C-alpha cells in the first residue's frame, strides 16, 4: 500500500498505525513516583489485574475504564500522560462483593493507563493499557 500523507493522517487518527505512533510517556518519572508512593517502593508484578479501557477514546473528557483484581484490598489507577498521573484509588471493604470498579476518567492525550493492585498478602500487581485519544473534528 502506498502511504501518502493523506492516508497516513487517516490511519493515524483511526489508530491503525499503532506502532508508528507509539509515543513515549511524557511524564514517566512522575508516574513512577506516584506508583512508588502507593506501593511504598515494593516490586510490582504482572498478572492478576484486569484493566479494560478503549483502544481509541472518542473524547479524552470521558473515557470509560474498568478494573478488576480478585483478592485485592486496593486498586490505584494512574495515567502517565496527564499533568498529574494519579486518577483514583479504590479501597475495597468487607462488603465489597468483588474487587471490581468502573468509572469515567480524563486523559489529556494518547497515553498509558496503569492499574496497580495491592493484594491481600501485601504484594503488588499491575496491568496497563494504551489509550489513543482523538482530538479535533466537529463532533458531528
Amino acid at each position: 500500500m502506498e502511504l501518502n500523507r493523506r492516508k497516513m493522517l487517516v490511519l493515524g487518527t483511526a489508530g491503525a498505525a499503532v506502532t508508528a505512533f507509539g509515543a513515549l510517556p511524557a511524564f514517566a518519572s512522575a508516574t513512577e513516583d506516584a506508583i512508588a508512593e502507593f506501593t511504598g517502593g515494593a516490586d510490582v508484578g504482572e498478572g492478576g489485574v484486569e484493566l479494560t479501557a478503549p483502544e481509541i477514546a472518542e473524547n479524552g473528557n470521558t473515557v470509560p475504564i474498568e478494573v478488576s483484581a480478585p483478592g485485592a484490598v486496593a486498586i490505584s489507577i494512574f495515567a502517565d500522560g496527564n499533568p498529574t498521573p494519579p486518577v483514583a484509588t479504590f479501597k475495597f471493604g468487607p462488603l465489597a462483593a468483588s474487587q471490581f470498579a468502573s468509572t469515567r476518567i480524563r486523559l489529556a492525550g494518547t497515553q498509558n493507563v496503569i492499574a496497580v493492585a495491592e493484594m491481600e498478602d501485601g504484594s503488588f500487581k499491575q496491568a496497563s493499557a494504551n489509550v489513543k485519544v482523538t482530538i479535533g473534528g466537529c463532533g458531528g
Partner: protein
Amino acid sequence: MTKTTVTGGRLIIAAAASAFALAAYAGPDEDELVVNEDIEMVTKTDAPDHVDAFDTIYSGWRFRSDETQALQADDFDNPAMLWVEQAAEVWNTAAGSEEKSCSSCHNDVDSMAGVKAVYPKWNEDAGEVRTLEMQINDCRENRMGAEPWKYTGGDMTNMVALLASVSRGMPVNVAIDGPAQSTWEQGKEIYYTRYGQLELSCANCHEDNYGNMIRADHLSQGQINGFPTYRLKNTKLNAVHARFKGCIRDTRAHTFSPGSPEFVALELYVASRGNGLSVEGPSVRN
C-alpha cells in the same frame, strides 16, 4: 462486520474490542439501540421521499464509538438525565404572575408524549412555524406571566430535553407541506448555501461526506433527532440551534442567531430529513 445490540450495562465493554478493529471505517455501524431495555430506537431507516441525496438515513448514534453509544442505552448512564430531572421539577413548579406551572395546564409531562416528534410545527394563531423553544416561551410569557427563557440557555434546553425524553422511540414526523412549506423551502435553501471563508454548506459535510473523517472525527448525516444532546466535548446539554451556530462558525462565517427565523427554517428542514428516525433526545454524542 460485527453487530451488537447495545442495551446498557457491562456486556457492551466486552464487545468493544472487536468493534474497534473496524475503527478505520468511519461510516455508520450496524449496532442497534434499545434504551433501558425497553425503548427500541429506529436509528436507520429509509430516507423520506423529499431527501434526494440518499436512500437510507442514519441517526448520529450510529457514527459513535461503542463506549459513547453505551452511555445512551441506559438512563442512569446518560449524564443528560441529570438535567432532565431538574426540568421535571421545574415542570411542576409555579412561576410568574399567574402562579401557574407547566403542569397546571399540561398535567403530567407524560401527556406531552409525541409533541417533540412533530416540532417545528406551523402555529395557525401566530401565523408562523414555531420551534418547541418558541412555544415554551409563549407559555411562559402569555400563560404564566413569567420571563421568557434565553433561547439556548440551560433552563430552556433542559425543558426541551424533558419534552424530548417522553417522546423517545416515536418517529420524527414534521409536516413540510401546507402552511409550513415556504418555511421548509427557506430552510432547504439555507442547507444548500455555502457559508463562510471555507465556503461550506451543510450538504458539503453531511450529505457529500458523511461516513468520512473530518480531522479525527466521523462525519454523520447531521440528523437532529437526538437533540438536545449531551456532548462529551463540553459535558453539558446542547441545543440544536447552538449546534447550528457552531457548524456555521466552523465555516468561518458570521452565523445566524439561535431563535432567528433562519435557524427556525433550517431546523424544520433538517428535522424533516430525519422523518422516520426515532426521537432520541437527550442523546449522547462526542
